[in-house]
């Protein structure tokens, strides 16, 4: 712990956390730019950085973006991020009462509380998992990959079939390149650039950043917020009143964050509902209740930390943002999962220290950056889009100085746009791309070691438990999916 805290001052972790939070707030405040897109835009530029600094920068961006999303939610009734949608209800009502500054202050303060609680949970939940690291075999890793893929069932949205198809397309993308066992080239079509496979960073930047840019090009301009707004932090009385909704939000954020497919949006709405249920001022909800801002903001900032639990400990991204962060780890040769705690404890400790700094930085930067943030949000959309486009093409080229990669990222951008058009969820494809290599290589290694005996996956206790959990996740998701379908048909 002391080493981690010292690293904030002795390395570039501290400045990276501040810079990441600033970038995240700016990105989150722009309607249409989600935390994952904000992170994806930054991803290529972290290529040449120290791995710990790079992951801290990306994780801090996630923290900042969760707060940034509440700025347009409060000021122009348009959530900057999906997770800030619940903040619109009471945040905008407070703004209409001339209390925009108070609403922003509550959002910032509650985000800090939620973020710090989430960080404590992250440290407590991920460390114990590192103890099983040495027991993992190819069989266990295959089962871990299957568990990760089982998340597809819960993140497929309105259509399970479309989600499964997206997952399969992702697995197909992961097969491009040199075969992990025989060394033969597959699906490279003679291109030397494809021999090492398709870098996940290109898939991320293409699907999220370019895909959203293309989708936004057909959207209308959004209303502009006021040119000025001054944050006002809550006083002692309000501080006490907000404790309960913040506790509810932090709890909901923890539960949803660690669950596959859970995320800031669900936890924010759950926290809002529960805060209203347990409030002594229920009649104020929907009319500008401070508790109605505190609960969802605490929840989505808790998720910014707890969503990293499955990603760090099992290598399974449970949200778009954690998938981009996972891509950042992979880009630097760090493979999240049990062995990361054994091989690179310095990165883990640095990340924890960086997240602590980021949550504190959020309050300082959030206060200072408000004016430039509002200036940026007020820029005309054509200019904003043009500069985002310029950043994307510059960033992708910088990864390996390859125009082929820029073209490939544009291709994935077109795919991302098509998937949005066909209402196909992006996360299943990302899961397929991320986990495809792990699943295939370990499946084949395990079978080779067992002389082709497929029962090896059930004899290995870790593998059996992980496959059992995967089966439970799929069954629960199917039941929920069927329940929703029946409810929609009945209604």
């Amino acid at each position, binding site marked *: 712990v002391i080493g981690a805290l010292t690293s904030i001052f002795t390395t570039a972790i501290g400045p990276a956390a501040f810079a990441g939070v600033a970038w995240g707030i700016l990105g989150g405040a722009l*309607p249409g730019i*989600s935390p994952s897109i904000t992170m994806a835009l930054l991803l290529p*530029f972290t290529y*040449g950085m120290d791995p710990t600094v790079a992951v801290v920068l990306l994780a801090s961006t996630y923290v900042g973006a969760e707060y940034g999303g509440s700025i347009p939610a409060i000021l122009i009734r*348009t*959530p900057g991020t*999906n997770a800030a*949608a619940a903040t*619109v209800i009471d945040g*905008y009502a407070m703004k209409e009462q001339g209390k925009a500054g108070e609403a922003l202050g509550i959002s910032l303060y509650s985000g800090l509380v939620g973020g710090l609680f989430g960080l404590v949970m992250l440290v407590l939940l991920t460390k114990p998992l590192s103890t099983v690291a040495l027991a993992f075999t190819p069989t266990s890793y295959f089962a871990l990959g299957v568990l990760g893929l089982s998340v597809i069932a819960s993140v497929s949205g*309105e*259509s399970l079939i*479309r989600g*499964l*198809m997206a997952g*399969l*397309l992702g*697995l*197909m993308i992961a*097969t491009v390149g040199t*075969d992990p*066992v*025989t060394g*033969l080239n*597959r*699906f490279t079509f003679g291109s030397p650039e494809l021999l090492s496979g398709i870098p996940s960073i290109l898939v991320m930047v293409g699907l999220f950043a370019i895909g959203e*840019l*293309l*989708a936004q*090009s*057909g*959207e209308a301009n959004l209303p502009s917020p006021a040119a000025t707004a001054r944050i006002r932090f809550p006083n002692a009385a309000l501080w006490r009143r907000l404790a309960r909704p913040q506790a509810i939000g932090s709890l909901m954020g923890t539960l949803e964050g660690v669950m596959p497919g859970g995320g800031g949006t669900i936890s924010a709405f759950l926290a809002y509902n529960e805060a209203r249920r347990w409030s002594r001022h229920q009649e104020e909800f929907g009319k500008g209740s401070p508790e109605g801002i505190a609960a969802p903001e605490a929840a989505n900032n808790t998720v910014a930390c707890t969503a990293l639990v499955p990603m760090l400990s099992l290598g399974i991204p449970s949200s778009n943002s954690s998938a981009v962060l996972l891509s950042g780890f992979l880009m630097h040769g760090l493979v999240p999962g049990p062995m990361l705690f054994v091989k690179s404890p310095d990165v883990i400790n640095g990340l924890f220290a960086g997240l602590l700094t980021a949550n504190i930085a959020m309050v300082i930067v959030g206060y200072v950056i408000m004016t430039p943030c509002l200036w940026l949000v007020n820029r005309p*959309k*054509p*200019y904003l*889009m*043009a500069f985002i*486009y*310029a*950043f994307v*093409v*510059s960033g992708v080229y*910088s990864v390996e100085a390859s*125009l082929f990669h*820029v073209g490939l990222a*544009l291709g994935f*951008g*077109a795919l991302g*746009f098509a998937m*949005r*058009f*066909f209402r196909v969820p992006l996360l299943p494809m990302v899961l397929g791309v991320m986990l495809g290599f792990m699943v295939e290589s370990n*499946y*084949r290694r395990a*079978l*080779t070691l067992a002389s*082709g005996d497929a029962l090896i996956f059930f004899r290995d206790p870790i593998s059996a438990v992980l496959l059992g959990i995967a089966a439970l996740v799929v069954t629960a998701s199917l039941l929920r999916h069927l329940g929703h*379908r029946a409810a929609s*048909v009945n*209604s």
Partner: protein
Amino acid sequence: MDRDFAFGTASLVISVGYYWTTTLIPESQLADVIGPRGLPTMYALLLGGLSLILIGRSLGVRFWLKPAATTAESRPQPDTAVSDKTRSKPRTSKDGARRAVGTLLIGCLYVAVVPWLGYVMSLAGLLFATIWYQGAVVNRQVVIVSVAGAVFCWVLFVLLMRIPQPSGLWPSLL
């Protein structure tokens, strides 16, 4: 043609093409029990099967279940302040698709010209074209912002961050 039918058909074409490509993977003396073709073949067959299910479901809804097809998925969503402004809503307009294709072409054009024109000129072109294509009135300000933006990016990435960008043919001419 509804979206499920279109997506199913596109996926079916991809699965057939992918399956055909797996047959081109050569045999290897080092091959394991599954082999390099094993899982890709399975992926292709699964995708093909799911594509057929999606196409079948789409056709079934269209021809046999049309009167009952107004499930929550196809029914218009309530017009609330929150739901209609989040980015999860589907883009339906053909104009949106046209604009997306145009924006994509600007990016492709950048990739095509940057080896010759170099980073600053090509990026200025990309900025100008995108600002114009997104509906801004072309005037001196757009030109100045485009050129200044490209120079700013060059200073930021190449000079300050030491991230190389294509220099184009200029070094050989100077």
